């Protein structure tokens, strides 16, 4: 899995590519650090090339979301595919995130 982060003054754009499995979740912790410094900026995750997500991946997203909420930011998931959307629905995560 790969992640690229682009920061502007108003938002942080993170592009997720590949499979977000348990191993990836462990490896990505460092790459995800910029997303914890949102400082009021909204976080937009481009999921157009994210193929798969496991519960550990969801847990990483939940950590980002909790942090973002505490500093008043929104987390928007963009272009989620059907497989991932089903997982989000099964776990009730659809009600936690915003979608674009």
């Amino acid at each position, binding site marked *: 899995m790969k992640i690229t982060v682009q920061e502007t003054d108003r938002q942080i754009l993170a592009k997720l590519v590949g499979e977000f499995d*348990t*191993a990836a979740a462990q490896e990505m912790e460092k790459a995800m650090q910029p997303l914890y410094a949102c400082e009021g900026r909204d976080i937009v995750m481009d999921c157009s090339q994210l193929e798969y997500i496991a*519960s550990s991946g969801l847990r990483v997203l939940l950590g980002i979301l909790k942090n973002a909420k505490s500093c008043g930011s929104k987390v928007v998931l963009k272009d989620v595919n059907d497989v991932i959307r089903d997982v989000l629905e099964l776990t009730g995560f659809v009600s936690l995130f915003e979608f674009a």
Partner: protein
Amino acid sequence: MVKWINKAGTFLREKIGTSLGFVILAALLLELLSFVQFYHTRSLLRDELQKRMEKELSVKAGVIRSSLASAEMTMQEHLWDMQVHLSQPDSMFSVTRRLIAANPEIVGGCMAFLPDYYPQKGRFFEPYASKENGVIRVQQLGGQEHDYTEHPAFREAMQTGQPGWSDPYLYGTDSVSHLTTYSYPLRDGEDKIAAVCGLDLDLSWLRDTLNANLGYPSSFGLLMTRSGETVIGSDGEKPGIRIISALVSGRPAPGQCLMTRFRDPQTRRKGSVYYTSLSEAPYWQVALVSYDREVFEPIVRMWRLSRLLILCGLLILFFIINRYVRSARRLQQARIEQARIGSELGIARSIQMEMLPKPLAERPDLDIHGFLVPAREVGGDLYDFFLQDGKLFFCIGDVSGKGVPSAMVMSKIQSLFRRISAHVSDPARIVQVLNEEACRGNERNMFITFFAGVLNLSSGHLQYCNAGHDRPFLLRGKTEKLQARPHLPLGVFPDTPYGVQEVELSGPATLFLYTDGVTEAMNPRRELFTDGRLAAVLEGLGDGLAAREMAETVSDAVRNFVGDADPSDDLTLLVIRYIPQEGAEILRDSIDLDNDVRQVSALNHFIRSVASRMGMAEKPARNLQLAVEEIVVNVMHYANPPGETGRVHVEATSDGRMVRITVSDEGVAFDPTAVAEVDITRSAEDRPVGGLGVHLARHLADSIHYERVGEQNVLTLTKMIHKNDRI
């Protein structure tokens, strides 16, 4: 005005009630009827009175007249005697004596000669005879001190030359005896008047005669002169005499009977006076008086009595109607209340029915059908079944008693069963927890016979625990009862130990569970259906019947047996047909992993290759991948203590219809399926970190089954490959 009347009507209806209105109406009608009757009777009575009075009047007038006529006759009979002796003045004394002796009613007689008729006897000569105590005394009355020529009777006889009767007058010292005098001008040979003869007729009998036969104590008779002066009957005490005299005076033609109404101004009494006059001279009037009060007293009294009786009758009627109306109202209220309870029970019944499990989605290895008919609106029987991790959880139970109390216990047990079995898959443990709950606050000592089972659909392994329930039938080739130890029912002692029993279902088998409503169903002859009959029905079932058909066959048999008898207990059936599916294995592959989550990528690669070899499309392949990854990661986390290394063996097999993934490791015993369901409705801040993985695996796989085999944890996960799952 109309508004006021309407208001009054409404008030009466509301406050006093229709029954009183009805009674008042009846009272008015009866009152009217009794008045008409009274009025009619009164006029009949008046007619009767009139007839009687007319008759009495004519009788009394006749008596008076005949008395007068007898005196006139006496005078006629002695005319010759007197005329013959006219020339002998002294013989006149004996003539007078003979005259009064002839008629007992005549008390005195005189011959008043014209002045100087007998010169030798002086100017006034009047021989007079009178009766006193039956002795006749004769004397000469005329003289200077007694100038009879001035007497009105003498003068009238002289003037008219005709005989006549004087008006009755009082006589004697007692002033109560009346006399009347008949004056007759006596003529001599030359037809000149020589003397006026008088006969005094005693009328003392007349008062009694007048008052006789009147029939009423206050009624009385009167004799009046032509001028209307009351002479007899008037003693001054009788009220209204003067009025009556004025009314009657000079009115009647002789022989006619007339009637006049009057009202006494002093006593205000009303009355009738009937009167007539003598048919000949002296034309005295006879009147009879009656007072309404006395005449109509009996019927007035009767009328009052009848009104009193009517009133009493109506009062009794009112009370009866009132009681009837009240009890009818009570009955109606009871009926409304009953309907309300009935509708609430109906709702309770539908709630209870909704608690029963819905049919499962059709699948080749399982056919299950439940059937529950409460004896009353709601019942104490229950059954439940659901699939979880490739296992069928099922139960059947019977709460002691019937109706609402049992139904409430039933619903409590049923929901507890679901909650407990969500994370406990050992039926004995489930029953134990249920028993502890059932014993808590069980003041009414209600107990529940209960049977719980867990069937592993992939292995055919059946675990069960029986808490005092009828043993189910197990049909596999032959019909026999499942071997089940009869533990105490739920709700007896909280610390009752419950043990689990097991049986392997290697081939197709049917489990038939029932409550005693089946075996103890009673026909009209009070015979029980019994286990024997049930076994016979089950043995008679053909092969290949669906669970629903089996349940219906049994319930029809019970219904036919019971016939018209009332259902004595709730009737519940649960039929579980298990048909293990064995297909030819077309794939077998495996991978060994270290106990390290970084190896998950290799695992995913392996699963993706299995899915691709089975021709699975992207989405089911990803779902299988996710389910396996979550289970394996779980095992990696918990099976080995941190720092210790271990191995995880993952094997995949498939018969083309499903993929079976077996995950085995040699770590400490750990059952990931025992983890409770997570609450996916919580907000981000409240979300716990764990639990999501097992949750996902459960929902994405068709079954997950954990077993500790020897020193190994063995997790079996199956995923069906449906037609539309293929590429």
